[in-house]
């Protein structure tokens, strides 16, 4: 029993009533890739554009005041949603990837990471929390190291030892491929013990779990609007204020300045220092509406629903002959992304056959190529769930997998 009525919720998402191939209803099991949007979010964006649109900060007319207030209200809502001690700690970016790149760039430019220093990631990072650190290591001469992954798909915290040389530990909270929920509190403890900064990729966590960045104790947390019933084109970097205030800007231009001459520029305080150019105004309004939507449901309820649907799916899929789940097989410390392989059928072909049944899943390396390598597979098929997912949809997935096996004679 979850704390909300899934059938009622589904009415907020018109796309879920679409009819797909062969007149089958859409079974959308690709929410870890991007979530669907409720009417409430889309209408908030529409209303903003058609009634209150103006540029922000710079305009002192009434529309400008309305737009600025709407934009900054989005920031307030996000700050409250993640328990940020200060609203100025919420920096809007274009997506989670930009947020992570921003941190990597300014830690390098700001001298926090240099030659001989060590940056530690894990083998289960999304490319967006791996490539920025590779690029930083290349630019600065720092060494990139990583925690490995156990055969069960858990982080192996014994596989690497942090030292005084470690300046940054960048870790995903929830793996987008394995579903694994990592022990972030323990990682924060170990990193801070050696004086390293902690960057958490919370792209898969914030949409599904109650998050309190103050309690978490990390230094930076990144996530993305489109995975949490919000719009594309907006991401969030939360950072400890004193760190944001210390670090140099990332992009130049627009309202990130204090004063400018041809020769040199001084920069505004956070968050504006890190928001060059016209920010994602309508997207902040949309993300604010998304946060309201999630808060109305209650993040405890969202998390409980994900737990329940994941347990249901795992128990059904563990039973299927010829199907191997890559990642934790029990619904413990685990989010709702289930990656799997089917003997004798390539993941592309699995996804294609499921799609012909109306079941939308993802096939490929899910931007986690090194992690696939760990498990000796080149790609997997992934089903992922969200607050609108029903047990009937899991049943459709299971039926689709059976059909796929028989289609390919596997």
């Amino acid at each position: 029993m979850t704390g909300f009525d899934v059938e009622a919720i589904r009415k907020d998402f018109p796309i879920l009533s679409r009819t797909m191939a062969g007149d089958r209803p859409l079974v959308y099991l690709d929410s870890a890739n991007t979530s669907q949007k409720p009417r409430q979010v889309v209408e908030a964006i529409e209303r903003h554009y058609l009634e209150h649109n103006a540029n922000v900060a710079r305009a002192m007319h009434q529309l400008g005041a309305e737009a600025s207030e709407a934009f900054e209200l989005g920031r307030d809502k996000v700050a409250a949603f993640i328990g940020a001690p200060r609203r100025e700690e919420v920096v809007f970016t274009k997506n989670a990837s930009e947020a992570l790149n921003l941190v990597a760039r300014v830690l390098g430019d700001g001298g926090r990471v240099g030659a001989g220093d060590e940056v530690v990631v894990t083998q289960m990072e999304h490319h967006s929390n791996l490539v920025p650190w590779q690029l930083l290591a290349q630019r600065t001469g720092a060494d990139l190291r990583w925690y490995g992954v156990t055969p069960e798909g858990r982080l192996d915290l014994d596989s690497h030892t942090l030292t005084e040389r470690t300046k940054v530990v960048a870790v995903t909270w929830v793996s987008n491929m394995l579903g694994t929920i990592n022990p972030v509190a323990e990682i924060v403890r170990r990193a801070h013990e050696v004086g390293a900064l902690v960057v958490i990729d919370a792209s898969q966590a914030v949409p599904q779990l109650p998050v309190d960045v103050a309690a978490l104790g990390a230094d930076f947390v990144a996530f993305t609007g489109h995975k949490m019933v919000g719009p594309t084109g907006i991401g969030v970097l939360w950072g400890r204020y004193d760190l944001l205030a210390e670090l140099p800007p990332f992009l130049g231009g627009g309202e990130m300045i204090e004063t400018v001459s041809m020769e040199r520029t001084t920069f505004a305080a956070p968050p504006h220092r890190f928001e060059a150019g016209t920010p994602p105004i309508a997207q902040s309004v949309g993300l604010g509406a998304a946060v309201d939507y999630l808060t109305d449901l209650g993040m405890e309820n969202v998390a409980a629903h994900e737990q329940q649907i994941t347990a249901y799916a795992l128990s059904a899929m563990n039973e299927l002959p010829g199907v191997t789940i890559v990642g934790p097989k029990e619904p413990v410390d685990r989010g709702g992304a289930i990656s799997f392989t089917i003997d004798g059928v390539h993941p592309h072909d699995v996804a294609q056959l499921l799609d012909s049944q109306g079941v939308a899943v993802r096939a490929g390396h899910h931007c986690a190529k090194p992690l696939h390598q760990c498990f000796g597979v080149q790609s997997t098929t992934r089903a992922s769930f969200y607050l609108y997912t029903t047990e009937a949809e899991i049943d459709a997935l299971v039926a689709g997998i059976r059909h796929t096996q028989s289609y390919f004679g596997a």
Partner: protein
Amino acid sequence: MNASNVDALYQEIILDHYKHPHGAGLREPFGAEVHHVNPTCGDEITLRVHLEGSRVADVSYDSVGCSISQASASVLNDLVVGKDVDDALTTLNAFQELMQGRGQVEPDEDVLEDGIAFAGVAQFPARVKCALLSWMAWKDAVAQASAKEDS
């Protein structure tokens, strides 16, 4: 796109080539070897071309990928080995045109032989890359092998 389209995609011919690929494996001698990747899904192919004068003497390959990409490599092998390079490139153009034609191009069986079975793929934009992976690798390898022959 409906269920019957999936059958158009997975034609019997394609599934046959997938299960029994022609010319698979890496062989010597070869004038050029290339490695191509489909970045979206991770499908990969290592492909070698051996030219004798202007004739495609052998195409050998090792690939990991879906039914479409594997079958396509097998059909490629059928269609280009033994042909003159220029003729083979004409075949490639015809195949590429078919793939990128969004289902609007009528394939010529005289040119494409088993390749016409891929007509259904053109209706699945996400799969077009799968079908073209080996062909693009072959085009690249031929260019390298020809350059070597010429120098």
